[in-house]
């Protein structure tokens, strides 16, 4: 019932977005609105903001005019599927690293004091700055005898963004049990490991679920940005750039790639929500 309502709300919000888009096209000035040459509102002409149905129609048309070209829809789905797999790889790597870091920081106070500032600082480094570094390192590496693939660089950068909310959220969760519960485990002469498995980890799930969701969003953004800044082919990030270059002659096409990227984000977010269902037992408060 609750999920039906939130689905309806989601569809309603999407419809509202389309209505607003068209309403702005109808009412807004084709030249936008500027104060002292600073444009505050975008142009509403067809080149800048194609009609919703033009974008939808563009999906079904061939990607390029050459004979035998597949439709834009196919191209966008292929690219999104590529980016999806890279995001998932980055997200899984980020989650593993994030949880391990959190456990390490919980176990050793020194590790927390030493690592936490760097973990926070790591997120202030611009992605475009680390992208060439990762590509450079990757070029010298081989994984299980296989040469480094370009998508691996993208996944590493995606994981670099995803691990942060997971590490911070999990650490908070691991430290969340009440004093009475910890005292109890101590009175049982439970080892640190037993306390981790039976108390701290289950108690951290309520914090982990929102962290996983944030991590998933971060991994998608990381993938798209990293594809662009490393020049990796095949993904939705690259497609956005390719299509944007043809914006003058084919204004609807760049929007198809953007819609594809948004769709990718939605799919990943809903998949992470499925974890809620599996872990609901540990999350009685229903933290979101």
């Amino acid at each position, binding site marked *: 019932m609750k999920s039906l309502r939130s689905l309806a709300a989601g569809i309603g919000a999407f419809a509202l977005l389309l209505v607003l888009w068209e309403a702005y096209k109808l009412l807004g000035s084709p030249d936008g609105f500027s104060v002292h040459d600073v444009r505050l509102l975008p142009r509403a002409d067809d080149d800048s903001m194609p009609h919703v149905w033009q974008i939808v129609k563009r999906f079904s048309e061939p990607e390029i005019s050459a004979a035998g070209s597949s439709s834009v829809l196919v191209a966008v789905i292929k690219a999104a599927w590529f980016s999806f797999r890279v995001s998932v790889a980055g997200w899984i790597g980020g989650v593993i690293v994030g949880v391990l870091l959190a456990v390490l920081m919980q176990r050793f106070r020194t590790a927390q004091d030493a690592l936490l500032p760097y973990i926070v600082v790591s997120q202030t480094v611009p992605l475009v700055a680390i992208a060439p570094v990762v590509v450079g390192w990757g070029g010298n590496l081989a994984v299980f005898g296989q040469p480094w693939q370009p998508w691996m660089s993208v996944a590493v950068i995606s994981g670099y963004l995803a691990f942060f909310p997971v590490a911070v959220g999990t650490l908070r969760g691991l430290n969340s049990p*009440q004093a*009475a*519960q910890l*005292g*109890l*485990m*101590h*009175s*049982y*002469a*439970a080892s640190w490991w*037993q306390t981790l498995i*039976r*108390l701290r980890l*289950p*108690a951290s*799930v309520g914090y982990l679920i929102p962290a996983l969701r944030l991590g998933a969003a971060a991994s998608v953004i990381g993938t798209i940005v990293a594809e662009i800044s490393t020049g990796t082919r095949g993904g939705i990030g690259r497609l956005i750039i390719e299509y944007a270059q043809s914006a003058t002659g084919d204004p609807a096409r760049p929007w198809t790639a953007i819609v594809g990227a948004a769709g990718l984000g939605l799919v990943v977010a809903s998949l992470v929500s499925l974890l809620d269902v599996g872990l609901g*037992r*540990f*999350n*009685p408060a229903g933290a979101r």
Partner: protein
Amino acid sequence: MTGVPAVALSAVGKTFGAGKPSAVTALTGIDLTVAPGEFVSLIGPSGCGKSTLMRLVADLEQPSAGTISVFGKTAHQARLDQDYGIAFQAAGLLPWRTVRANIELPLEVHGVSRPQRRARAEELLAMVGLSDFAGHRPDQLSGGMQQRVAIARALAERPRLLLMDEPFGALDEMTRERMQGELVRLSAQTGCAVIFVTHSIPEAVYLSNRVVVMSPRPGQISAIVPIALPERTEDTREDPTFFAAVTAVREALRAPQRVGLELT
């Protein structure tokens, strides 16, 4: 076995933050012996160190002075051997576990096999009258029921000593009296010695063989009041001997203040 006290404290002191200017002496010069099967309550105003005293026996804190022995062993060894069960004011049940799984937790930690855990949990559930709630989650239970689960959990390892830190402190008066009745029955049934920390004079009197009255700053034992009541029933609470004992404990609690007044 006879002759070995359940708990023996000799000249025990506890100072938090020793050596610092902010050091607080929580306890000083505590001598106390609890016999096997004896029910002893610790009572006193906030800050008198009664919870700290219990935590020392539980080896959750280390004493700064004196010696503590539990069944003739160090408190540390007694903890490792699971000689005591413990319950706090917060029931501290794990919300993601069923009532049964909560009771099984200490057994699970100690590697007891699944069928044995099951059987022991059923026994304990019957003992605290919660057999019908085995599959419920803690947040589906009332506060009194949660505390009963916590007591059952404390009894899981068949300890000969039960340490309780204001376990009924958060319950309403009626539930509280019913729980006291159950605890009297449980301690008789299991033959456990009990150290029971409380703020409530009638509670201490109703439950105990002896009431240890403590005074603060620094925490020390100011009096030990033996309670000689006939077998506890609901009528006990209206018995003149009960009121006499309540009065005796109340006066013992006031005594240090009276001394203070006389001095001024």
